[in-house]
């Protein structure tokens, strides 16, 4: 495929004009009335697309982007000595070291802003999906109204960047068939904005093309014939003249829109097999890597908000309750090259400045502490012991909320920038410039030109983009 971004050649002013129109359109549609928004947004937004790379299950900061004292595997070594199980490596930015295994990412750190001081609230008991709900909506469940996903906010306030392209696309997560899937569904939604602003779910990247193709077993000719028959019978409907009803018209418009994507040139963006072989190999055959590739193609073709997840499955992937070191070693391989390649690809296409890439997770992990120091949260490690007795013990097997990494690229953020710090010795809590979820969200919203105080009316009360409109963008992160 020859990637031709729909509006990348347009001057910025046109984009803003379009954006304003989209906002008005979004205001008119269902799912709450816009009631508050600041016109002036500082710092000035430069991004018009977001890619969230979601490290589902709790990515341990000391095993990835915040290496601490390295403890090699030694039988009998005290567990309390384990801070990091990977040695630190240099990056192409002086003063920023990350963990061994992330060599490709080390070479794009000069394009990154690394926050080492994100903190999550202590919710008393760790339930991944609850923290994920909080991270993705800004609200801790349960809520009296269905809170919209970050992507739904983008879809609602900014609308689609390209009218044929769904504004909010969610890649890599199966929403059926495992332990906490109901809880995942609870936040993977448009919430009270309605399903119009909810996600298009593409759980398997290399099957994404199917979602914009005629149904399986139906060739293009037959599919078109079916559509033609639909229109002919619609024209012949004896009630056509009696019911020139608004509801009916709006239903037909939606069907028409749906059909438009299936016959648009943008649908090729969903088909990663059209990517050159070299590029496919660089992104790798892992689902996450393929998801990154798909995300790039979608953003190139006008997607507004894309999330790619390593997939949350209880006790799998980043959710290491035992054998953590070996698992993370594999995960390093899964994410390192694809993310680095994604950043380079966006850059070479001139899209990095206007695309905010955020690598994040619901919390970090620690070898000893569950939650934060003195939390009432129950210990959930499945292998316990005071010393390293087998490789199974070797890793960070407890959920830690006191200091978490977020890695950002592009979208108007600084380059080669380090923000915040955690302690060098346990507890590895944020000791400098803590960033809360409302402030992190405010940063993302602001980068996209949305005021963190934006609010919509639901059941007569205001519902804010960041809780009670309190989130403040971290100014120091912006270039």
């Amino acid at each position: 495929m020859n990637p031709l971004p729909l509006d990348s050649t347009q001057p910025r002013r046109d984009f803003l004009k379009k954006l304003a129109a989209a906002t008005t359109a979004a205001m008119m549609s269902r799912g709450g009335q816009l009631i508050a928004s600041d016109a002036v947004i500082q710092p000035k937004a430069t991004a018009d697309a977001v890619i969230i790379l979601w490290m589902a299950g709790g990515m341990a900061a000391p095993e990835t982007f915040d290496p601490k004292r390295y403890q090699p595997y030694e039988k009998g070594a005290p567990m309390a000595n384990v801070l990091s199980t990977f040695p630190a490596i240099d990056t192409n930015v002086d003063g920023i070291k990350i963990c061994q295994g992330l060599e490709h990412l080390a070479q794009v750190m000069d394009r990154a802003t690394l926050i080492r001081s994100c903190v999550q609230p202590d919710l008393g008991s760790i339930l991944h999906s609850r923290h994920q709900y909080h991270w993705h909506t800004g609200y801790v469940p349960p809520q009296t109204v269905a809170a919209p996903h970050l992507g739904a906010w983008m879809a609602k306030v900014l609308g689609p960047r390209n009218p044929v392209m769904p504004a909010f696309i969610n890649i890599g997560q199966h929403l059926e068939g495992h332990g906490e899937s109901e809880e995942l569904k609870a936040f993977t939604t448009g919430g009270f904005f309605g399903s119009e602003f909810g996600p298009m779910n593409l759980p398997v990247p290399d099957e994404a093309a199917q979602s914009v193709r005629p149904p399986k077993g139906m060739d293009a000719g037959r599919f078109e014939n079916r559509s033609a028959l639909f229109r002919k019978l619609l024209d012949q409907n004896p009630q056509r003249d009696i019911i020139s009803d608004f509801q009916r018209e709006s239903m037909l418009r939606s069907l028409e829109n749906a059909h438009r994507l299936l016959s648009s040139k943008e649908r090729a963006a969903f088909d990663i097999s059209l990517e050159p072989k070299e590029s496919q190999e660089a992104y790798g055959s892992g689902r996450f890597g393929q998801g990154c590739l798909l995300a790039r193609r979608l953003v190139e073709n006008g997607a507004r908000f894309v999330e790619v997840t390593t997939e949350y499955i209880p006790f799998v992937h980043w959710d290491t309750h035992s054998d953590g070191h070996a698992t993370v070693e594999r995960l390093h391989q899964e994410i390192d090259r694809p993310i680095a390649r994604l950043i380079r690809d966006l850059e070479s296409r001139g899209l990095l400045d206007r695309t905010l890439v955020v690598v994040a997770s619901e919390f970090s992990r620690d070898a000893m502490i569950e939650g934060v120091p003195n939390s009432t949260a129950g210990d959930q490690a499945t292998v316990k012991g005071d010393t390293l007795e087998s490789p199974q013990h070797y890793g960070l097997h407890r959920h830690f909320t006191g200091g978490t990494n977020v890695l950002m690229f592009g979208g108007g953020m600084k380059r080669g920038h380090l923000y915040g710090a955690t302690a060098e010795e346990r507890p590895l809590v944020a000791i400098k410039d803590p960033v809360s979820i409302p402030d992190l969200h405010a940063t993302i919203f602001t980068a996209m030109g949305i005021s963190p105080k934006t609010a919509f009316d639901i059941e007569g009360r205001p519902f804010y983009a960041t809780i009670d409109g309190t989130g403040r963008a971290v100014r120091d992160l912006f270039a």
Partner: protein
Amino acid sequence: MPRFLPLFLLSCLAAALPAAAVDFSHEVVPILKKHCAECHMGDKKKGGFSMNTREDLLAGSENGKVLIEGRGAESLLIQLITSVDSDEQMPPKGTRLTAAEVQTLTAWVDAGVPWTAGFAFKKGAYEPPLKPRRPLLPAASAGRENPVDRILDAHLAKQPGPVPAPLSDNAFLRRVYLDLVGLLPSPEQLTAFLADSAPGKRQQAIALLLNTPQPYAEHWLTFWNDLLRNDYAGTGYIDGGRKQISAWLYQALLENKPYDQFVRELVAPTEGSEGFGKGIKWRGQVSAGQLVPVQFAQSMGQTFLGINLKCASCHDSFIDRWKLEEAYGLAAVFSDEPLEIHRCDKPTGRQAKASWLFPELGQIDASQPPAERLKQLAALMTHPENGRFTRTIVNRLWHRLMGHGIVHPVDAMQSEPWNSDLLDFLATDLADHQYDLKRTLALICSSKAYQSVAEVLKEDADRNYTYAGPRSKRLTAEQFTDAIWQITGAAPRKFDAPIKREGSAPRPEQALAAKWIWSGDQKAKAAASGETVSFRTRFHLAALPQTASAVLTCDNGFKLWVNQKEIARSDQWETPVAVDLLDALRTGENEIVIVGTNGGQGPNLAGLWMQGQLRFADGSLQTLNSGPAWLWNSAVPRSDGLFTPDPGHWKPAVEVNGAAWQGINDALQALLVENANGGGPMVRAALMKSDFLMRALGRPNREQIVSMRPNDLTTLEAMDLNNGQILTTRLETGARAILQKQAGAGSAALVSWLYAFAYSRAPSPAELALATEALGSPPNAAGLQDLLWVLLVQPEFQMVR
């Protein structure tokens, strides 16, 4: 004194006054608006003086009366607008009134402060009456005796616009079937109804539908599941933080439990009904506004009284009259422990005292234990003088049937109804008839108002509502799904709701015959942690079976493909899965591939178990049971179930001692029995867990109470209809099933049958020609599948008109 009463007196007064010397609306109103509005109208009440209503004006200010009726010159208002003392003159700043304006106002006061009845500069907050009211019914006109018609005919007589036209028999039958039992009338039922010439046939149809307990219950289950946020899967169930009320609710609907009794059992619950009040508890700390007792207050208020206590459970509400104290009072009725009032999540130091929202009707004795308090609450909620309780439910039923609430939205019962006689009549009628909800449904459906052509909607239809007949409703996800299953006969055989359903009683038990298998000999050596094994079995089918299902599980997880089509996956080995294989089977060679994955921390037992059964038209059976005849391989297929390259070297699977999994034998057995059943009444979508298609069609996640589903189809939803896998598969299977059943029917006959079923009407000649051509002759499966899609996606199908 309630605020609405003086308005009523006022209108009498205005009528009694002699013709005014000044024109209030055209002369006085503009002057008052121009000079006084900034400080004395709307929310503004400077000096305690509001001019919003005549009553406000006469009530005066903090300093006493401002107007003396009939005596302009002596009135403070006239003195102040003419005063030259800058400390007292009105308005204090800005342009003074002209002499002519002063003269007009003086004349107006001299004339006795005439006022247009009902006029207010800003409407005072409407406060709905609490007590029931029995309105006098207007006389029937043109033989329209139904009380609903008597009220609405009088209503329509007072507004411009025609009386909605009567509905045809065809459209009536489709509407009343979908509204009362959620199903389409079959072509046979339609034909019989059209042929019937008895004058009371519509009445009979209504009675018949309401008197068939099961279809009625299984349709209204959807309405109540939304309103009581009950579902068969969802947040909270995972760690016991939520409890279903499905069995209780289903039984209550089957029995048509009187509504007051129904609610008493939800407020002061039995074991089966306590799930509603207990709400949803997530693990860990939650904000004060979502503690279980506070959820209780919100749920009770919203569902039964149309009161939104969500604002008031955080702070005194800005949008209605409810206070933090009152929300917490209701919460404290439920709470087992002392409940501290939190304002915006911060403790206030005050303890909530159990109380209820309308002390006019009685109060809770806060010193009683919780169970007793709940009984008192149940009695107060269903108190005969609690008109809010009955108004709320009849308004919900009216909304479901007529497409727009008498009070709208239906959860904002503090708003003014567009016809209070109608609301009050329906509410008292319900109470007067043993709270029989079916009676209310019958009353509405029997009216000419219900049996009228649906209103044609404009884009702004929801602003400034004016009654102009019933409104079309979008089919619910459940109605849409059921309708497809009705037409195609391809409903699933098992359902998810944990209920006792007539016609679904277990047949004689099926023995557990399949074997547990794995890759190696585990008697000596356990399977490695994380080991992934592919199993394969191939079989030949001379003909497709009528049913094909299986029950399976794998310790720790599996993925199942049939002919390269993924059918199921699970990592919950303790919960076996029942699957339908029929859609994926084909005549000729078939292949089942299952990838099993072992979990755990070290080597441990692993096993796969599957028992399947194919039933053929001739009654013969074929089994598909895991055992040593199956093969295994360590290679893993691609996501489409294909092995590339072919791994070769398939080895016979090894039987594993099943003793380790004895604990789930009961679950396997129960599922097998359940899965093998068929032939009972059609399984309804309301009994199924939600799936992607139902979600796309508007079935909500029931974390919050839902009283009105969105009426419009969004683009993302349309995409699911357009090329979503669930609908495609359903129509593909459905087309085959229809062709089998209607074998020999010509294309034209088939088209007529489809139109009768889907739209309750005959096709026009043009439609018949187009559709027949599309079907081919004789009709082929692909053509039928596409025609089905075309018919089902048309707005005519997706709406209850």
